[in-house]
């Protein structure tokens, strides 16, 4: 049922309408321009007869007195097989189809269905006739790429329903009826599509579990020093130019998960284009397919309307929750949550709410917390375990981590990968600051060993700072060697060359091996005549380790390089003579 209201105010992307009757907060409305074009909007405040709406399009041309169609449905997304590989805008319109139908520009007022209605899916029934099902119980499954995509009883189902019929195995479209349920004489036809309001967490599981299994990213500094777990949360704050996006892209390529959802929220279109154009050609080593076959892109770039940017992160996380519900391990990468926070701020300003710090609304922190809390590892109703890991970048103004978005995020995440100017200027990538960052999770290498190695970094930094004051000549050779060791650890372990085919992704086995090899060097008792010799030796070692990093795993050449490293170590060994 929809009602008609009348526009009384237009100000930026906020429109106020006067309406008689019952309206629902966060319901969808359409502002109708004089030329008939309908602009999608969402109710964000109700004041008596007046409703304030954020319009997801340019409001150019709207007039006082124009009609507004107000629906009762909350802003929702369409869920079902066929989401993977798609590129959507913040409101789940498929961008490729928009381009085909309406050309190069995103002209306002065009909305398309998110799921392909024509595609045939190989359906296998799972539920038996006569059995009882609750919301989210499996009725059948289809094959989506390499995954079993379970078709579930509606998430909105109340109580237990009896399965009256299930379609036999065969090919079906998403809108075809695949099951019929009944309860108290009422029947319900089920197809493969579900709708879910984006602002409501989708959490139909038996229980939430504690994250215990590392999510391997193949980035050494993350997996070893600042690990993230399946179902965990992490954030990557950093000033511009520190390599946030490259890090996110590497994670999206190499992370050991089933589905990756990229939410490009208020960032550059170019970055999305890169993913869009490259992922269909990049092999996914896990599946033999291409990376796009496990990726969904939600793209609301910085020049697209700001209200849709605000909703795009919710669209993304709802899709993530859905695939978790299907039984998969999902990684959501939101880039950047600061742009989302800014969108909140813009709307808050237009609503003339009393501002908090830096003009952000007072509810900023709770909004951030609620967003990250939608991640997690869960046990589903049928006992399977699945997860949604959430990683968000933060773009703090001026690179200052004391600002509200960074601080609000740090409180709720399990790992903090802080990027630093200094490291990126020195071309030390990934520019995660090893002394500022932290993780509450444990990683792929024994925690004690990691703590031991980390001490070198701290000592090395202290010694380096000391050297800035007292000079190299005022530093003892022992301290100097510790400094060189810390630099070696930094250069050959923390840093990773994402443009080298081999070094870009370092699997767990290789990380463990390299960690031991580097540890051996850190542990080694060197004997040097003077500092020049020490520096020289470490140049050689660094070069040898780098070559090791660039050489493919399990090759004779790799063994040879390892031998040269050992040789260098032996040649400078301190003897107890």
């Amino acid at each position: 049922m929809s009602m008609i209201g009348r526009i009384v105010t237009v100000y930026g992307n906020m429109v106020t309408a006067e309406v008689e009757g019952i309206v629902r907060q966060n319901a969808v409305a359409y502002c109708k321009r004089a030329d008939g074009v309908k602009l999608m909007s969402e109710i964000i405040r109700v004041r008596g007869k007046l409703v304030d709406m954020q319009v997801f399009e340019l409001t150019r041309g709207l007039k006082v007195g124009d009609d507004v169609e107000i629906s009762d449905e909350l802003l929702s997304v369409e869920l079902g097989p066929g989401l993977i590989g798609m590129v959507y805008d913040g409101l789940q319109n498929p961008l490729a189809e928009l381009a085909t139908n309406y050309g190069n520009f995103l002209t306002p007022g065009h909305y398309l269905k998110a799921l392909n209605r024509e595609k045939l899916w190989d359906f296998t029934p799972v539920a038996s006739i006569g059995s009882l099902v609750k919301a989210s119980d499996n009725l059948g499954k289809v094959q989506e790429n390499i995954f079993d995509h379970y078709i579930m009883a509606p998430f909105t189902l109340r109580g237990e329903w009896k399965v009256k019929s299930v379609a036999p195995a065969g090919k079906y479209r998403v809108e075809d009826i695949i099951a019929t349920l009944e309860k108290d004489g009422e029947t319900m036809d089920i197809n493969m599509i579900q709708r879910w309001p984006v602002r409501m967490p989708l959490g139909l599981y038996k229980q939430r579990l504690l994250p215990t299994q590392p999510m391997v990213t193949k980035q050494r500094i993350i997996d070893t020093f600042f690990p993230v777990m399946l179902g965990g949360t992490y954030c990557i704050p950093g000033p511009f130019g520190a390599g946030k996006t490259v890090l996110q892209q590497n994670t999206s390529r190499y992370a050991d998960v089933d589905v990756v959802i990229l939410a490009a929220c208020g960032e550059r279109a170019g970055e999305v284009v890169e993913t869009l154009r490259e992922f269909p050609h990049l092999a996914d080593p896990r599946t033999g397919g291409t990376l796009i076959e496990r990726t969904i892109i939600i793209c609301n770039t910085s020049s697209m309307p700001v209200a849709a940017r605000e909703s795009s992160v919710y669209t993304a996380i709802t899709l993530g929750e859905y695939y978790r519900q299907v039984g998969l391990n999902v990684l959501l990468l939101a880039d950047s949550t600061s742009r989302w926070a800014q969108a909140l701020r813009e709307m808050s300003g237009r609503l003339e709410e009393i501002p908090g710090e830096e003009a952000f609304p007072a509810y900023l922190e709770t909004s951030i917390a609620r967003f990250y809390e939608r991640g997690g590892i869960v046990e589903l109703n049928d006992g399977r375990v699945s997860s949604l890991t959430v990683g968000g970048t933060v773009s703090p103004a001026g690179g200052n981590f004391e600002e509200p978005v960074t601080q609000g995020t740090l409180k709720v995440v399990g790992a903090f990968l802080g990027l630093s100017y200094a490291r990126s200027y020195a071309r030390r990538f990934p520019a995660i600051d090893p002394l500022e960052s932290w993780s509450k999770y444990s990683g792929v290498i024994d925690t004690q060993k990691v703590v031991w190695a980390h001490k070198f970094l701290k000592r090395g930094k202290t010694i380096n700072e000391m050297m800035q004051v007292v000079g190299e000549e005022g530093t003892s050779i022992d301290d100097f060697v510790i400094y060189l060791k810390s630099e070696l650890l930094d250069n050959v372990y923390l840093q990773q060359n994402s443009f080298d085919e081999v070094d870009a992704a370092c699997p767990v086995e290789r990380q463990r091996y390299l960690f031991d090899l580097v540890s051996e060097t850190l542990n080694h008792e060197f004997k040097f005549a003077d500092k020049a010799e020490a520096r020289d030796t470490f140049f050689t070692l660094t070069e040898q380790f780098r070559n090791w990093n660039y050489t493919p795993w399990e090759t004779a050449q790799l063994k040879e390089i390892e031998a040269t490293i050992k040789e260098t170590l032996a040649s400078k060994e301190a003897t107890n003579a």
Partner: protein
Amino acid sequence: MRKYYTKIDNIAGNVATLKATNVGYDELAIVEGSWGSSLAQVIRVNGDTVTLQVFAGTRGVSTGDKVSFLGSSMKFSFSEDLFGRIFSGSGEARDNRGELTDNLIEIGGPAVNPAVRLMPHRMIPTNIPMIDVFNTLVEGQKLPIFSIPGEPYNELLARIALQAEADVIIFGGMGLKYDEYLYFKNRLEEGGAMNRSIMFVHTASDPVVECLQTPDLALTVAEQFAIQGKRVLVLLTDMTNFANALKEISITMEQIPSNRGYPGDLYSQLASRYEKAVVFEEGGSITLMAVTTMPGDDVTHPVPDNTGYITEGQFYLKGGVIDPFGSLSRLKQQVNGKTREDHRAIMDGCIQLYSKCRETREKRAMGFEMSDWDLKLLAYGDSFEKEIMSFDANVGLFDALKQCWEILADHFEPRETGIRSNLCDQFWPKNS
């Protein structure tokens, strides 16, 4: 029949409000009074109250001035006749040649669908080694020059404009000093580029609202050429003036400022301009070079800070040279893997060593003894600055790479450079 309103209720700053009906958001109006007439834009409609942003400012506007609405948002004539022309920020001819009225196009339209964009993939050679080798400019890129007032940023911009190959050059000047405007005009004329250039100029003495329109005019025209398959280079200077104009208007509108008086949507406002940079599947492109002056050399100032998050890198102009630290072309990786295999290694290697040289200089300044290694670094740094970083350096990419190898060989052993051994074997100058 056009309807005239003759009662303005409020006048403040560049904003005027009046009672009117059937007015669309973003619609254009004309305010006519005894001091002349000006275009104005509807920036708010609330019941029958319409808020107008008056392009020429409200100085001298009377509450009895005549206001009429044009029924559409701002439009500008687009055709080949634009070449060689100069316009003001309100789209009026500045060169005493006639106004153009054909083929009107809407200014500031919707964003390009990301699905039809191509990844920028073609290098734009500039013959400036600090750009070509270290931070390659790529067709379709958006890149600002960050600098303090007083640096030769306009010279750099003009040099890039003339040396880069582009079918169309569109210049947008915001808050320019009059002599800066003449400088660009003369450079384009002397360089023989005026016949493929279009200039939109807002000088410091022009009304501030026109400053807001200038980039939109420039970019809308650029977009039209790009759709036709042209490779367009857009130059915008100075975007800080544009941001300050935004600040002025938003404060007049009593918006709550977010940071140092700038409106909360500064990021979105800047982004919607910069994001016009594009490479279309059909071949046309817009490359956008802008100048952002940093008040007090402070990169954390809201304008450079927000800009840095939007653009694909930035060139820092410091002490008359493009500073290798902080300067970044994010898209260089799209092209520098295809130029020559040593390009990336030289790019990283030279900068890492130069960074160490800077640290050593600090140590020297504090009076520490210099080790042999320190002396090597110092000597290297001097050569690197003199031959590569200098603003006068004007050589192609391969020559610049060769020079870099020579400088390295003059001062270091191959393994001290941190460059992979197989590249050193191949490119290290043999006679050293």
